């Protein structure tokens, strides 16, 4: 029994020398952009942008009032994909009890989450009416007058919006954040992001598919053989 345990342990140790640590955690930060005096942080639901659906969260601390925010992705061939941003509703509840360095990779998320919870009221956000004709292709949320009025009453406040976007291709993309006033683009900033292929590994899919499919085919052949053998036996009067 001890020899079996030692053999298994040795094997595990040998594998572990070669194996990388892939564990990851937290809501990943994609980019930080400086827009004059305002700092924008962009989070994603994956560590990088992936082909397919991504949910981006844009936080802008100290956003001057009266400015509208646009977020776009610009592809390697110049294609522009607007991100439809909607207010992030923050619920109340007990504070997250984060602890332990073991979760160090998620610490950014821990801090980000705490910041999210402090920016509690979506009505604190500046009006984001997207009346600009150049943005007609957006399907933007229509904030009510109440929200716009309240936003005007506030001093420069935190901005906390989230939007889903579908990225079609891999490659080097740019994230562009624009702040617009009544006269047009007041300021903008951009960051490079890499878009990777989403979904599981093709090798994995191939391996599991082959195993299941191969077994299924084997079964079909074997069942056919058995039924043929049965028919032959019947014909021979056995």
């Amino acid at each position, binding site marked *: 029994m001890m020899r079996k345990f030692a053999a298994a342990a040795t094997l595990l*140790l040998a594998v572990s020398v070669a*194996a990388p640590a892939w564990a990851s*955690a937290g809501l990943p930060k994609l980019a930080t952009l400086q827009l004059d005096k305002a700092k924008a942080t962009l989070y994603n639901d*994956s560590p990088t942008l992936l082909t397919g659906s991504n949910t981006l969260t844009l936080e802008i601390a100290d956003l001057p009032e009266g400015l509208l925010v646009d977020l776009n992705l610009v592809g390697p061939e110049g294609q522009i994909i607007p991100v439809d941003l909607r*207010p992030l*509703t923050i619920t109340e509840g*007990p*504070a997250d009890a*984060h602890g332990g360095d*073991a979760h160090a990779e998620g610490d950014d998320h821990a801090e980000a989450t705490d910041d999210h919870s402090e920016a509690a009221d979506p009505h604190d956000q500046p009006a984001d009416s997207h009346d600009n004709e150049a943005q007609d292709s957006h399907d933007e949320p229509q904030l009510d007058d109440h929200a716009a009025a309240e936003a005007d009453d506030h001093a420069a406040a935190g901005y906390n919006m989230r939007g889903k976007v579908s990225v079609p291709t891999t490659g080097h993309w740019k994230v562009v954040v624009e702040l617009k006033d009544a006269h047009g683009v007041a300021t903008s900033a951009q960051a490079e992001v890499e878009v990777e292929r989403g979904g599981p590994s093709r090798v994995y899919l191939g391996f599991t598919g082959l195993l299941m499919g191969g077994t299924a085919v084997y079964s079909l052949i074997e069942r056919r053989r058995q039924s043929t053998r049965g028919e032959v036996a019947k014909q021979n009067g056995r």
Partner: protein
Amino acid sequence: MAANAKPQLPPEESNDLLDSSWFKAFLKSRWFPAMLSYPTLVVFGYIVYALLWGPTAASANLGTSLTWVLWWPLIPIFMFTLGRFWCAICPFATVIDTVQKVLGLGRPVPPFLKKYGIWIIDAVFIIITWADHVFGIVESPRGSGYLLGLMVTGVVVTGILFERRAWCRFLCFLGGLSGNYSRSAMIELRATPEICATCKTQSCYKGDGKTPGCPIFEFPRTMDTNANCNLCMNCLKTCPNDSIRLEARPATKELWFIRRPKFEEAFLAVVIVGIVLVQNVTMVSFWGPIMDAMTAALFGSKTLAFTVLFLFAMAIPFGIMAGASKLSGSMSGEGFAKNFARFGYAVIPLDLAGHIAHNLFHLLAESKSIFYNTAALFGYHVGGPAGLIEASTIQWLQYGTIALGLFGSAFTAYKIAQRSSDGKSTTSLKTFWPHLLVLILFGIVNIWLFTFPMAHRV
């Protein structure tokens, strides 16, 4: 009373849940477990899709939330109250049954699987726990998806090749865990021996043409353990003599005397102590410096460092328990292996408590992530703290759970000590004390670990 009639107890004394006619009718109907298992399969399908094709950040992936924040914490609670009921509605079982109808070859299970199945389960459980920390299964949606996908592959392959639910009985690591935990459960399904003695059909095992027999290769007539009963109710549906009973019982009662204790099952129970300790210690604050020191000492390889610590953590409970078994066995003239096999089962209540207590944190401190991620699925963006209650309250619940588990284990060890290995009563409880001390030690370590703040999964 007719020969095949079930011995009737007065209603107030009967523990048989099947005395309720509507409940019995429901369990015997085609609606059970189909009305639960098919929706579970649909949800499972979505979960696998979300894990493999959805966001790769755990906190944003609904598959991760549903699996590791909701299902994994609830599953040991199910096992304690309802035995292996999860297995009755498990999507893997539904996949096996469906695949077998279309493609099944129905071959007998190979002898090596029957002989070594539980060891394979032990090894797989250990490897998965190791892989979780090295490759990130729980904290990586893709990792979780790969694991579930591999299990589905195993399920399909074994379902096509072998008869009945060979995967569930001999290969599923969850089945092994369920089997151990469900021995502590508060219900049991048994047959009535006096009725079965006159049975000519044995359709509980063979099936009756309409409903298959036991899918887990159990023969209800002689079944005396919850370990392999997945409460599918096939035996209830096929039994022509109304022999099947589904009774409530004191928790852990089955562990008090096991007719044929198996070393490999006791080994799994003790290994789970180590696994629960690893899961706890890797989520507390002092783990980081320990890992850093080990990594520096071992060629800068974090993986190698973790593996060494992991093997150490597996070996310690086994070593301590082995020492107690040697001492305890020497007091009764029983060999080490026999004593270990008998008393190893006593740690199961503490295993269960440790598992529940650890996951109470994730369930109560992170469960709003399920709501947020479900809302996101329908286009509503909601965020905020993920907890339902304060962390300090959760800690007290954890302490209480461990205390209950420790009591359950200690009482079980006491009852085991009251009988010698041949089942005869004994007045000597010398064999009890070494195991009691070990259980108290395991309990104290668990409680001590819960005094530290725990890291989130999502």
